[in-house]
């Protein structure tokens, strides 16, 4: 486990955002953001997975344990899944998991779910900018990092 708050030239807190995205829509969408020369914050670390249906809820907890201050999960819009129904299954999972996170006291504002298609490069840039700003206001995820620090094996 690494310390989360890297020293910044300005000394200000820079949030780390882990983004779990599907290969077919959001990853391509984020690619389009780049090829369209749209600027967005460099705080996001993109992890490409085959489908939102592949994104295990534990990946989000692992991201927090490894020092993420916020998490984005994004994939194809409903009805657009490359595997027909992966995003529908994922949606159900997030509906329950988000509830459970809230019940265990994790701030759900640190977890953002979105549908970003391969054509929505601008939406991706806007999403990352909004999430980065929100997590910056929330500050470092110190509660979870303290929990994770206690678990160094």
């Amino acid at each position, binding site marked *: 486990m690494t310390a989360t708050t890297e020293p910044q030239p300005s000394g200000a807190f820079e949030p780390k955002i882990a983004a779990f995205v599907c290969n077919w829509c959001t990853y391509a969408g984020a690619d389009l953001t780049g090829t369209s020369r749209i600027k967005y914050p460099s705080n996001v670390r993109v992890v490409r997975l085959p489908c939102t249906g592949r994104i295990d*809820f*534990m990946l989000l*907890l692992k991201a927090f*344990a490894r020092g993420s201050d916020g998490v984005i999960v994004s994939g194809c819009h*409903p*009805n657009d899944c490359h595997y027909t*129904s992966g995003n*529908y*299954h994922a*949606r*159900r*999972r*997030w*509906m*329950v*998991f*988000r*509830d*459970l996170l*809230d*019940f*265990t*006291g*994790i*701030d*759900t504002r640190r977890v*953002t*779910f*979105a*549908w970003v298609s391969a054509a929505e490069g601008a939406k991706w840039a806007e*999403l990352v900018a909004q999430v980065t700003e929100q997590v910056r206001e929330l500050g470092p995820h110190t*509660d979870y990092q*303290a*929990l*994770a620090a*206690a*678990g160094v*094996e």
Partner: protein
Amino acid sequence: MEELRQKARQLLESGAVKVVVGHAQGTGGKRRAHFARTAAEADALVHDDGCWQNLANYLTKPEVKKLGKAAIVAPPAVLRSLLQLGAERQLREDEVVALAPGAGGAVRTLSSLAEVEEHVATLPDQLPAADRAELDRLAAMSAEQRRAFWAEQLERCVKCYACRSSCPMCYCERCTMDCNRPQWVPAASHGLGNFEYHVVRAMHLAGRCVECGTCGKSCPLGIPVHLLTIFAEESVRRQFGQKGGASAKPDFAMSTFRPDDKETFIR
């Protein structure tokens, strides 16, 4: 109690079942699981408020299956467990006879899952008042208070896995908790390992939990772990209208979907 013993004796004497799973007097005034294989052993069966263990847990164990067809003393939570196990293809339609104790010591014999389902539909479905009150108390807290509550509770967990062992729905022969290549959930009982374990357990039981509360009662440290699974189960019911243990027909909320599932948070 007499009617229960008598029905158990009859089932064993007629050879309809080979074993009756119930409770008997244990040590220290407690009740323990009892496997009556003869009519004489059936006389030791008891059923009262002290019998909280969910005995459906035993029905999927190879040691118990080996004994032959079983009958089980089945209060409502156990009946629901039977249905859920049936829905998950762990019990066949006529593999088990349920002896359902009702008011005034009367006992109903239910000899198929279809009969169990019919009977369960007539039963009131309510959480124990103490659990309801505790869930409401937690719901009224701020997220920060809830975090502190669970941090304090789960810190005490020693990962004995009694909650997993006592649950009839945790029948997997290889549990993800036991996989160590890779070690997905930390095995040690520190804050992170405990938190991840209990979240995984709740997620794996969402839509399947019958809310018997046995996991919480089994915890040697008195951690209310059953609140996590009951919360996840209620979340499923509220959002998808599906419920664990309502039917022996496969209807698992988390392995299906509706195109019009409604959420409020996906951007």
